[in-house]
């Protein structure tokens, strides 16, 4: 299958996986269509996949919400302008404008203030653990993919 035919399916997969990662729900068709529409805009797609590691991280992260979290956690510290992060922010922008997803972003958990502090602390600790895991997973990949593929070999001499 050539790249242009594969892309819409890849975008849909990204949109579904990222939405489950961000708000725990699948997106409605309107959000998926808007997500794809953004990627169809001239110049956008190239700007979102700047290097080999970026492309691999997007493909990996679209497979499951857990992989999306790992890729995003890595990007949050070590690659803030990565394609994964940009696509997630794009989707967050679409979700916050669209019913019913925006309700999920508006409502806090129902619990006491001390309970809330515990929950926030727990999520912060979980982030720390995920950061270590993501560093172990993605750093070697990034180093490997940063080696130029077309480095001069014997045949070029």
């Amino acid at each position, binding site marked *: 299958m050539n790249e242009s035919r594969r892309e819409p399916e890849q975008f849909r997969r990204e949109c579904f996986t990222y939405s489950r990662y961000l708000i725990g729900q699948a997106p409605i068709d309107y959000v998926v269509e808007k997500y794809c529409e953004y990627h169809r805009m001239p110049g956008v797609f190239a700007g979102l996949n700047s290097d080999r590691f970026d492309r691999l991280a997007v493909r990996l992260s679209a497979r499951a919400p857990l992989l999306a979290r790992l890729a995003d956690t890595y990007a949050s510290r070590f690659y803030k302008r990565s394609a994964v992060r940009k696509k*997630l*922010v794009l989707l967050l922008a679409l979700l916050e404008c669209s019913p019913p997803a925006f309700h*999920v972003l508006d409502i*806090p958990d129902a619990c006491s203030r001390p309970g809330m502090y515990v929950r926030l602390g727990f*999520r912060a600790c979980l*982030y720390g653990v995920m950061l270590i895991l993501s560093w172990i997973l993605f750093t070697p990949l990034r180093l490997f993919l940063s080696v130029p593929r077309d480095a001069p070999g014997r045949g070029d001499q």
Partner: protein
Amino acid sequence: MLDVGHKRPEPPNPGDDFTSLKTNQKDPVEYFLGRKFEALILPGHEPEYYGFPPSKEYVFTKPGNFLYRANGFSPLVSFAAGGLAEAWTGGCYPFQERELIGFPFPYKDLAPWYSEVARRIGIAGTQDDLAKFMPLHDGLMEPLDLDEHSAVLLAAYEKRKQQLNEKFGCFLGRSRVAVLSRDLGNRKRCDYLGRCLWGCPSDALYTPSVTLEECRRHPNFEYQDNTYVSHFRYDSGGRITRLVATSLDTGQTHEIEVGRVVLAAGTLSSAKIFLESIYRDSGESLQLRGLMDNRQVLAPFVNLKLIGRRYEPKRYQYHQIALTIAAADPIESVHGLVTTLKTALIHPIVPGIPFDLGTGVYWFRNMRAALGLVNVNFSDHRRDENYLALEADPASAQTRLLVNYRPDSSEAARIREATRTLQKVLWKLGCLAPSAMMHIRPMGASVHYAGTIPMSADSATLTCTRSCQSRDFENLYFVDGTTFPVLPAKNLTFTLMANAVRVAEEAF
């Protein structure tokens, strides 16, 4: 009146609140993010905490004729009907007596016009601790209903007022805002739809296009829009005879005979017309020195008492509280507007939380009602190294405006000192303001430009009389920031309005 005059689009679903707009519109993404996603803020952009929505795009659209180059300055200009204040947040600060130092008239000459403007446009406010920094005037309406977070902050201030006043020189109170708390003429009172940033559908939040519409109903007022005035022609006696304007519909240039000319295009655009006119006549390229603007620092904070609370979407969206950190000389005092987070797009904010986005979203939705932002203003003074001039634009063979700005050497220390005090004050109010989240906005971002042809008691060229009459062209007047000789740490828009009415009464 000659104006480019880009028009505000009609607000959709005027009765809908912020939440209903998302539900009731066919394409909410197009409304909130734009047809080409122009309001989408992706990682890698400048770390502003909000962007202008597509519905305000008309305010900042420039005709191709207006060219500029800037050093150390991020200029914003507007060619909208109503100008830059179409996108303001309604903060109304009268200047104090001491802040009018350099103006060739005392406070008492300006005071009645604050009251007059307040009566005309509607300003909500009250007498409180800030009255000593914002003189009271007539025409104030009762204040708007407070949102919960602002009420919590004011209650905390009341408890610790003495310590905050004496130790930190900090005073809190209600911000005065150009918003109707009761009906005025055809305009309805604020109905708390939470749509202020996207454009108030009831005109409860005043913008100058409201006054323009009133003027247009007057039989002696003629309004010609889609017209770009590039310069004027004058005779050997220094009297302006004609304006040279281009129709943006046809591209044709024409000349209009004039008696008196009042420039109100904004400090940068008025300067461009002024400089271009002299350049075209004599080939002389002047510098207008003394450009000023308020440096602004954005200080986000979390109110620890409100974590886990639900936010209130049906509220007035902008600031309801102001604060002052007083200095010995009032002109060096620091003034800030406190905006508690209510309705807003969250995607520019969540990536700033130092986690992955999943955790960031979780933290944000549980802390949203606890978040706020202080927009701190710093004063500025006229200095020769900050100037406007003309230069040739190599790409178009036209002239372009050169904007040159360099902060004074004490600025960094002043910002450091003020932000430290602010952090301590916020802590006393039960709030945490992390240093890492503070953002020093680029010079030019506050859009409080002033000072290039100042009012002066001395009869020098490139100055104005107290009636804002040019000393270089006898029938030319300025009624924008061009003529202000100093810039306290305050939004100057209300004083611009009061001064314009004063000039109209004195000179016409």
